């Protein structure tokens, strides 16, 4: 039992990362109606920009600021592409476009950063917060969970209680009607992209020292993140938050049990599958009747 608790705690730090990226995915979907596959790649771009600056001799703090800026700019560029050319497209077309962009970003990112080269990501939150079940829970891990929680509640409040939030909801649900009502659709959409870009970059800069400093593996953090968003059916921030943590914990548990550990990488997919089956059960049953 102790072993399982240890394994679960060990998975928590990954869970925090999945949660924050999952919440960002829900944010993007709810506000600009895009299932964004490039989420983590945007963050990775910013994080690698920061490392490049540090390797070029810049001090840590300005490099972090410029890194976040680079991530924000990348997100803005993708946002411009999505709003200019694909604003009228279906959700599946938009998702396919971001998936294609992800493949391109990984190819270019690997070429620029060197797939097999080691990079030194500075620890933004070094040290560990406390020890639980024989596992050091790192400050970075705690910080990502806190950020995820804060972002979840901030997003909920913003959407439910502010005028801009209301406009944004209108924008994602009826973009045409919103535009006709005089809501500055494109400007708002780009702002959403910028915000999520900055957020994912901050998240990735925090977790990067504990991850493989490789552009592809960082970009592919989007898979568990989208699984987390799916648990929240791309609408509930809280469910995405808990879903992300849950996937991390289940992965940790899986690697603690020898028989399952080789299927550990499949956890997000199993979660996606289970959620899809569960959420579609009504439709299937209705059809059968």
């Amino acid at each position, binding site marked *: 039992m102790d*072993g399982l608790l*240890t*394994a679960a705690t*060990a*998975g928590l*730090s*990954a869970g925090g*990362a999945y949660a924050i990226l999952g919440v960002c995915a829900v944010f993007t979907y709810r506000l600009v109606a895009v299932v964004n596959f490039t989420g983590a790649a945007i963050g990775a771009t910013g994080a690698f920009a920061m490392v490049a600056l540090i390797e070029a001799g810049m001090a840590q703090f300005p490099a972090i600021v410029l890194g976040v800026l680079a991530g924000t700019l990348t997100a803005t560029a993708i946002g411009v592409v999505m709003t200019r050319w694909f604003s009228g497209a279906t959700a599946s077309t938009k998702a396919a476009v971001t998936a294609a962009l992800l493949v391109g970003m990984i190819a270019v990112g*690997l*070429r620029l950063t*060197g*797939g*097999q*080269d*080691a*990079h*030194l990501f500075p*620890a933004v939150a070094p040290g*560990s917060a406390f020890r639980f079940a*024989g*596992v*050091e829970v*790192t400050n*970075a891990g705690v910080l990502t969970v806190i950020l995820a929680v804060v972002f979840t509640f901030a997003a909920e409040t913003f959407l439910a209680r502010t005028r801009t939030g209301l406009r944004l909801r209108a924008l994602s649900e009826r973009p045409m009607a919103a535009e006709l009502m005089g809501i500055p659709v494109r400007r708002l959409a780009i702002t959403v992209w910028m915000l999520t870009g900055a957020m994912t970059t901050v998240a990735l800069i925090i977790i990067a*020292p*504990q*991850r*493989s*400093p*490789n552009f*592809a*593996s*960082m970009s*592919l*953090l989007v898979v568990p993140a989208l699984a987390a968003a799916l648990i929240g059916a791309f609408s509930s921030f809280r469910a995405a938050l808990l879903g992300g943590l849950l996937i*991390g914990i289940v*992965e*940790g548990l899986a*690697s*603690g049990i*020898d028989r399952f*550990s*080789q299927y*550990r*990488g499949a956890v997000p997919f199993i979660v996606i599958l289970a959620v899809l089956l569960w959420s579609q059960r009504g439709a299937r049953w209705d059809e059968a009747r």
Partner: protein
Amino acid sequence: MKRILAWAGAAAFASLASAAATGSAVAAPTCENGTIPVGAVATITGIVNFSDAPNGAKAVFDALNAEGGIEGCKITYTIADDKGDPAVAAQAARDLIDNKGVVALAGSASLLDCAVNAGTYVRRGVMSVQGLGVDPLCFNAPSVAPVNVGPYTLTTAMGYFADTVLESEKLCAFFLIIGGTEEAYQEAIANYEKLSGKKIGFVDLTLPAQGDLTPYLIKSRDAGCDAVVTNAIEPSIVQWVNTADAQKIEGIDWLFLAPGYTEALAKALADTEQPIYIGTEWEPYTEASEANANWDAVMTEAGLPKTAFSQGGYLSANVLIDVIKGIDGAVTRESVTEALKTMEPISHPIAGSPYVFGDAPAHAPMQATKVMQLIDGEWVLKTQDWLVLPQQN
């Protein structure tokens, strides 16, 4: 006086005649059109960039050509990029064999060249003096004999190092299994157990290519391992050591394979206190030793970065040149293949084992490593002498 001159003339004539005689007896390779085509298949663009290896080989061939080549024959060297894609790799090999007419391959360094092309090489009678053998088929095919130790033998060697030098009692192993590498790593561990007479703590074959490593580090700590060997590659090694530091793990020696032996890694892990050891494929490239002097000179002359991979290209090119020089008659695919199959072992200072191709269903001639330790961001030679794996029966 006349007599003396006559003696001198006779002696000079005799020495000339004997020189001519030995000359023809040693070898006189000849070639058509004054060129000897040689090729390499390497992953250059793609998820990794191994171009340092074929570039190192090219530097050696260029230097040779600049000095007149082999008996006037210049080597034309073609590097084909396989992009880490099996279809491209197969096409690249066919192009080298059919269109470029290569007599042999040297300096190849690829994620999948052997796996994809070893069969083609056997069928077409082309041998590859692989500069950097990566996939298991490089060490398990009649047509390929790498000049590097390779990840499988190196795993055994690092276990042997842990046993004999670090006096480890409980070695544990984590492997990232890509494609059909599982069997080769299992065999490497079995060889360690035979050599050391010790049982491995555990072998975990589930290391993920990406993802959090905390559970794995915790597992090795809780199992009481005093040394851990893993085939994690460069970026993952950084993550591995950072995670070990974050978890405040102490008392485990971390053993990594050759891919981690880079200056970027040393810089990235300059602050760690963890004991980190890495097995090299050749004479450690960061050492300004006698053994590296010629390689160093050739790379400097060619303006190439001095990396471990370039040693592989350098060594394979030198081996092939030596073999071709020993051919008596036309240098063709057939004669080079025959010469490689019947060659005597060649010793080179940058490798710990003599290299031999030979006629065998599988080749792993290189069986020696030197171990480097990472101390304060610098690579420090841990084993002064080559650590040579004892022959097993």
